[in-house]
């Protein structure tokens, strides 16, 4: 068999082909529906991008970051403040830059700490950045309400978010093949061991956090034209941070595609609940959370892998007699 280019394995090639086919199918959505299903699609795609970007960092390191809203809001504000002066693509890059810089600063300050300190710091971060941005806005700029009016419609935003998701996946795949990815695997398994074998753990974590932050910033920038009216409460909405964590954990963070299988059912479930129980959203969502944690503690990927092992053992082992109880 002839060797594949870039040292790709057969399995990677197959996964790539399946991925490309899925992207093409997804990209065709706006052709079939321009309204409700597209709006739902935009939300799914937004959280797909956010959760995958979040998993880039939090998956291997097991650091739970609640700072997503801070990066997202910076991206949104980059567009909100600059839309009258600079072209949109440049603003998206600025949003990415702001996200990365903030992640870098936070990383330097906190990633040497571990566990719960990091979670609490990132939770406060979104609020801190929100206050700084609105203070800066009132002192430096003369703009009052930030309106972002562009010619983008829902389908453009959908395609941009789809492209972003693909970019996050490719980046994640490249990282996994790189020295950085290998370092992250070691750190994730045991940070002390990683330090002893000579990995600069802080540097590796900061770089990964910056990449993740930059992608979340881009997502925020892409969403700015959809909000049209940029306010601190909606741009730095803490719910974003929590939803990202919940959806990513529902999917499972061991694989890069894990969050996807969390985002899709979760968004559809949430939509169903909003539609059917408009007056009881909170309580029904609460019950749904409990049910998820109770019945699928390892996430959807856990379920899939469990099913796969079961299937394999069943195929390998002699057929189970009817009536026999499975352990």
């Amino acid at each position: 068999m002839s060797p594949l280019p870039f040292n790709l394995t057969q399995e990677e090639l197959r996964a790539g082909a399946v991925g490309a086919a899925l992207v093409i199918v997804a990209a065709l959505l706006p052709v079939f529906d321009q309204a409700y299903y597209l709006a739902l699609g935009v939300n799914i795609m937004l959280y797909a991008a956010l959760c995958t970007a979040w998993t880039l960092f939090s998956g291997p390191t097991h650091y739970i970051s609640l700072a997503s809203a801070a990066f997202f809001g910076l991206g949104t504000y980059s567009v909100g403040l600059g839309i009258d002066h600079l072209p949109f693509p440049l603003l998206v890059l600025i949003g990415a830059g702001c996200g990365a810089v903030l992640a870098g600063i936070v990383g330097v300050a906190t990633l040497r700490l571990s566990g719960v300190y990091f979670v609490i710091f990132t939770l406060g971060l979104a609020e801190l950045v929100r206050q700084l941005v609105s203070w800066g806005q009132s002192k430096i700029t003369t703009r009052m309400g930030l309106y972002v009016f562009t010619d983008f419609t829902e389908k453009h935003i959908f395609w941009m978010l789809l492209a972003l998701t693909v970019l996050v996946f490719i980046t994640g795949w490249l990282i996994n093949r790189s020295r950085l990815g290998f370092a992250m695997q070691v750190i994730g398994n045991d940070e002390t061991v990683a330090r002893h074998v000579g990995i600069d753990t802080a540097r590796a974590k900061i770089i990964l956090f910056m990449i993740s932050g930059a992608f979340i910033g881009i997502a925020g920038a892409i969403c700015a034209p959809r909000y049209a009216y940029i306010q601190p409460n909606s741009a730095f909405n803490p719910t974003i941070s929590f939803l990202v964590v919940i959806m990513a954990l529902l999917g499972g963070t061991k694989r890069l595609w894990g969050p996807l299988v969390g985002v899709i059912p979760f968004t559809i479930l949430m939509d169903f609940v909003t539609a059917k129980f408009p007056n009881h959203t909170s309580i029904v969502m609460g019950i749904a959370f409990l049910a998820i944690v109770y019945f699928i503690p390892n996430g959807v990927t856990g379920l899939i892998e469990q099913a796969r092992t079961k299937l394999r053992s069943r195929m390998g082992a002699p057929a189970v007699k009817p009536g026999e109880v499975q352990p």
Partner: protein
Amino acid sequence: MQRRTFVTLAVSAALLSFTSGFAYAQEVVKIGASAPKTGPLAGGAAVTHWPNVKMWVDEVNARGGLKIGDTQQKIELVEYDDQTNPENAIQNIQRLATVDKVDFIVTPYSTGINVATAPMIAQHGYPHITTSAATDGVEEFAKRWNNSFWMLGTATQLAKGAVETLVKLRDKGDIGNKVALVNVTDAFGMELLGAAKPALTDAGFELVYEASFPLGTQDLAPVISSAKAASPDAFVAFSYPGETFALTEQAQIQGLDVGAFYVGVGTAFPSFAARFGKAAEGIIGIGGVNTDDPKVKDYMERHQASAGQGPDFWASATTYAGLQVLEQAIEQAGTKDRAAVVQAIKDGTFDTVIGQVKFQNNVNPNVWTVGQWRDGAFVAVAADGIEISQEPVKKQGWE
């Protein structure tokens, strides 16, 4: 076992919710509403928005429904929670338009969500009569979305009303020239500040203290004590409900001695009077209605009976008026055709609880801008284009 019970429960809940929608046979007008039931703005919507929607639907249906051509059709309301989130709001509007296929929609709640959903509402051609967006952008929005109508006025109108009220009090000799001016640093507070500051200076007022604070600030005692140290004759705060209540409380505790005490959104809530009792007397703020008008009186009584609570003294009446405009425009057009109804709103004059409404370039120019608490009612003391209720008076202490 547990799993099975849970699944059975979930399936029966889902079935119940599916089947509840198929009980009608007669032709109905389907009207969709998406606004916060949860999230930061849920409290405001529960006072100002939802009770009016419910009351209007009940009243129209009690009459037998909307007269459309030769038929009379009852309203069927489809309501969703947008969780105070523009993404959900957009999705709700799309679902109302394409899955529920509603004939008309009720305005979303708040400036931000109205602007975010406006492109989708325009895409489906629904008349979009906003009653909870007070911003200087309204003329631009009205031009951008030909189907949108803006009823609550602009920040500049509100700020000018505040300044006019201070001028009136100064001319009567109730207050002097010194003003303390504070604001919350969000878009609305800054728009009001941007309009009020030059107007105050032009009117010859002296700004002795200025401060701004972010939305959601818990401790406003330093703001009041610094303002007090500057010994102003009038205190003006462009604030949101949380800060409005906190500032008033601090002013009462510290005995801020001013002849005019103006606070922002929330002053017009019935809960404001309930919270401050006698101390509320003489406080001025955003909003106000003409409580002497029999139509307003009647509206307030009906609201009390329908919702078990009174309306607020600002956007509540406007919200109801917006629904009346929709109702009358549909009946005048005699059709459920959206474009025809949009045209009817542009051309028509409507008899509402806030008086005759006639849109000029899709904007309602006649609004009450400042109210004052007098004997348990928040009466209009300044307005643009319509009658005020009473002239403003000096605030007499905090007892």
